[in-house]
C-alpha cells in the first residue's frame, strides 16, 4: 500500500512531463506522418526502370512513411528521460526535500522502486501508446500503399527503451556525490555510449541485449548508491 501511495505521488509529479512528451510526439510525429501520406514522393521513390538497363543497388530500397515520426519519437524519448531523471533525482537535491521523503516509515528500497516504476510507466503510457496509435495509423491502407514492417514497430520500442536508459543514466548522475567533472558524469556518459552502440547495430537481438545489459548495470549502481549515500 505504501508503495502504491508513493507510486501515485511520483506519477502525479511525472504527469505534466508525460503529457508534454505525449503531446509533442503526437503533434510532430502525427504531422509528419500525415504530411507524408499526402505526398509519398518524400519517402518512396521508384525510378522509371527502362528496359535493357542495369538497376543500381539502392534503387530498390524504400523508407517507411514513419521515418520522420521515428526522429520525433527518438528526441521525445531522450527528452523525457532527461527531464524525468532530473525531476526525480536532481530537483529534491536542489530543493533540499530528500530528508522529507526519506524520513517516512518506508524503506529506501521502496522509495527508489516507486520512482523507477513511475519513470517506466511514464515512458510506456506517454510515448508507448502514442507510438502504437501512430503505427496503427501508418498501417491503414487508405493512406499508405503497403503495410509497415514489424521491424519498424520494434525499432520504435527500442527508441523508447533508449529514453529509459537516459533516465537511469541521469538518475545515477543525480545521485552521485562526486564533482560533475569527475565520476558524476559517468551515468550520462554511459547512456550516451549505449545510444551510440545501439545505433551501430543492425540486429534487433543485439540491440535489445545492449540495452538490457546497460539497464542491469545502471539499476545495480542506482540501488547501491541510493541505499548507501547520505542525504
Amino acid at each position, binding site marked *: 500500500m505504501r508503495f502504491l501511495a508513493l507510486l501515485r505521488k511520483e506519477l502525479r509529479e511525472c504527469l505534466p512531463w508525460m503529457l508534454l512528451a505525449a503531446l509533442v510526439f503526437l503533434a510532430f510525429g502525427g504531422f509528419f506522418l500525415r504530411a507524408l501520406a499526402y505526398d509519398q514522393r518524400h519517402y518512396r521513390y*521508384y*525510378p*522509371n*526502370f*527502362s*528496359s*535493357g*538497363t*542495369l*538497376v*543500381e*543497388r*539502392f*534503387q*530498390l*530500397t*524504400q*523508407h*517507411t512513411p*514513419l*521515418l*520522420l515520426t*521515428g*526522429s520525433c519519437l*527518438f*528526441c521525445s524519448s531522450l527528452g523525457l528521460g532527461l527531464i524525468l531523471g532530473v525531476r526525480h533525482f536532481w530537483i529534491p537535491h536542489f530543493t533540499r526535500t530528500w530528508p522529507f521523503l526519506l524520513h517516512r516509515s518506508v524503506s529506501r*528500497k521502496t522509495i527508489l522502486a516507486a520512482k523507477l516504476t513511475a519513470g517506466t510507466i511514464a515512458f510506456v503510457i506517454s510515448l508507448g501508446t502514442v507510438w502504437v496509435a501512430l503505427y496503427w495509423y501508418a498501417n491503414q*491502407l487508405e493512406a*499508405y*500503399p*503497403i*503495410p509497415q*514492417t514489424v*521491424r*519498424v514497430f520494434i*525499432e520504435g520500442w*527500442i*527508441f523508447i527503451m533508449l529514453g529509459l536508459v537516459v533516465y537511469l543514466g541521469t538518475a545515477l548522475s543525480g545521485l552521485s556525490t562526486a564533482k560533475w567533472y*569527475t*565520476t558524476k558524469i*559517468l551515468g550520462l*556518459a*554511459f547512456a550516451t*555510449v549505449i545510444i551510440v*552502440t545501439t*545505433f*551501430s*547495430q*543492425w540486429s*534487433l537481438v*543485439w*540491440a535489445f541485449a545492449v540495452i538490457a545489459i546497460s539497464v*542491469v*548495470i545502471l539499476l*545495480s*549502481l542506482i*540501488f*547501491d*548508491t541510493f*541505499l548507501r549515500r547520505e542525504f
Partner: protein
Amino acid sequence: MKLKNDSKYIATPAKIFMTVFIVLVAVSILQGIILEIERTFRFSATTKPKAELTEEEKRIDRIRSSAKEFLPDGTIHLVHKPRRTPGRMDESEIEQIYDANDDLLWEGPTEDQPYEYLSWAEQIHRFHEGFTLWSLKQIQMITPEFSQALEIPVGPRQQIRQFWRYSPASDLFVGYGSNGEKIGYAGSTGFTDSKSKVKPFGEFRLFTAWCPQDASSPTLLWQTQRRIYQIDFEKQHVELIFESTEADIEVERTSLHAWRDVKPGEQKHVDRQKYRPLLHCITEDGKHHLLMRNPGQQLTITIPKDWQGWANYYHRFTATKQGIFLRRNWIEFREAPDYFQDRELHGQWLSDYQSKAMKHRVELYRLDIDGSLELLNRYDWTVPPPSVPVVRARDSRLAVQRGVSQFSPPLYDLVVRLLGRKFWSRALNYQNMGDFFYSLARMILDIRPYGGVINRALSAIMMFFVFLHGWPRRTSWANFIFWLVFVGAFNLAGLLTYLALNHTAVINCPVCGKRRGLARVDCVRCGAELPAPERGKLDLILNT
C-alpha cells in the same frame, strides 16, 4: 539492509565495468583522432626516380602499361594508349597495337580499331551493380529514421501493380497488390499465394538486378549460401540456376558475362550474337563452376594448385559460340604475406617487390567439354628494377600508430591471440563491416600494442604509481592487488579507472604520523581509529 549489503556484489563489478568501458572508449576515440590527424596531414613521402628514361626503358614501360588482348584464335596483341598532351582535351584518343614481337601493327583513333578482342566475365561490382549482405545490413541499421526495406516494384512507374518486399527474417519475398492487400509469397519453390507452400531461398549473400529488354520491372540474380536463383517478378518465375551440395559459394566472387539482357550502348552490354551468357562462381572447396546458356551447359573445373600463391594472380573466363576460354595473369613472385599477421614481413615483401626484376605472364587456355585446359598462347615480359632505387620515406602512419598504441591495454594482445585466426578473418571480411562487434575487433587490431616494450614499460610505471598511491589508501590486500593487476592489464585506461574509483583524500595518522586514506576507519599501519573532528573544527582533512 540485506539488499544494501548484497547490492555491492553486483554494483562493484558493474561500476568497474561501466567506468573502464567509458574510459576505453574515450582513449580509443583519442587514439583514433590522432591517427586521423596524421592521415589528413600526411604528404606523399615516396621519392620517385626522376631520371630520363632510355629508349629501352621506354619500350619496357610501354609493354608494361599496354593492355594484353587476345583474338579469338589465340593471337595476342599489346594495345598501347599514349598519353594525351596535357590540356588538349580535343585530341582524339590514339591507340597503338603491337604484336608479340613488338612490331607495330596498327595506329589510329580508338573508335577505328580493326580488331575484335575477347571480352571476359567480370565480378559483380559490390558498389554499383551488386547488393551484398553488407548492403542489407546497412539498410537494416537502427537509425532515428528507422531501417529501410528492399522492395521490388512490378509495372511501369506510374502504374505499379505489385510490390514484392524481402523479409530477411524468413528469407522470402512477400507480395502486395496496388491496394495494399497481400497477394502471395516468393521463395525457392516459386511464387505461391500461401505461406505454407513456400520455402525460403536460404541465407542471402548477394544479388544483382537488371531490367530485361522485354520487361519494365527488375529481374534479380539472387545468390544464397549454396544456391543461385533468377527471379522474374513480372512473369512470377523463380529459376534455380546453380546449387552446390558440397560447399558454400564464395561470397562476392561471382562473375557474369552476357548474362544480363542489357541493350546495346548500356553499361555491361555484351553482344549475345558472339558470346554465350556465362555465369562463373567459385565454391569454398576451390572448384570453379561455369554455367552457360545457348545452349545450356555446366562445367566444373579444378584450377591447378600451383597456379595459386603468386602476386597479382587472377583468371577470367569467357564463352563464345566457338569455345570456352580462360585467361590467366600472374607475376613470378610469391604473393604478399598477411599484413595483420606480420607487419615486418609484409614490409620486407613490399621492399623486395619494388626493387627486384619480375617476370609477368599472361596465358590463354581453351576449355574442353570435360573441363580440361589446353594452353593456346602465352606472353611474358620482364620488368627490371628501377635504375634509380625507390626510396621509401619512413612510414609516418606506422610510427604514429606505434606511438598511440603504447597507451593501449596489453590485454588487447591477449584478446587477439585468444580469438584466433578464424575469428579475425571473419572480422576483416568486407561482409562483416557493418557489424558493431567486428568493427570493435578491427579497432582493437588497429591499436593493439603488438607486445611493445614501451607499452609494457608504461604499464609497469603506472603500476608503480598505483602502488605508491594505493599503499596508504588500501582497504584490503585483495583489493590492492586487484587494482595493480588491473592497471597492468589496461594501461592508461586502467590507471584512469583506478583513479576515478579509488582516489580519496589522505591524512596523517594522529598516532603513527604516517599517511592513511579516509576510506578505512582504522589506520592501515598502526590500526588506530579515525579521529573524530574536534568541536568547532569540522574539516577533518584540514585539521589533521
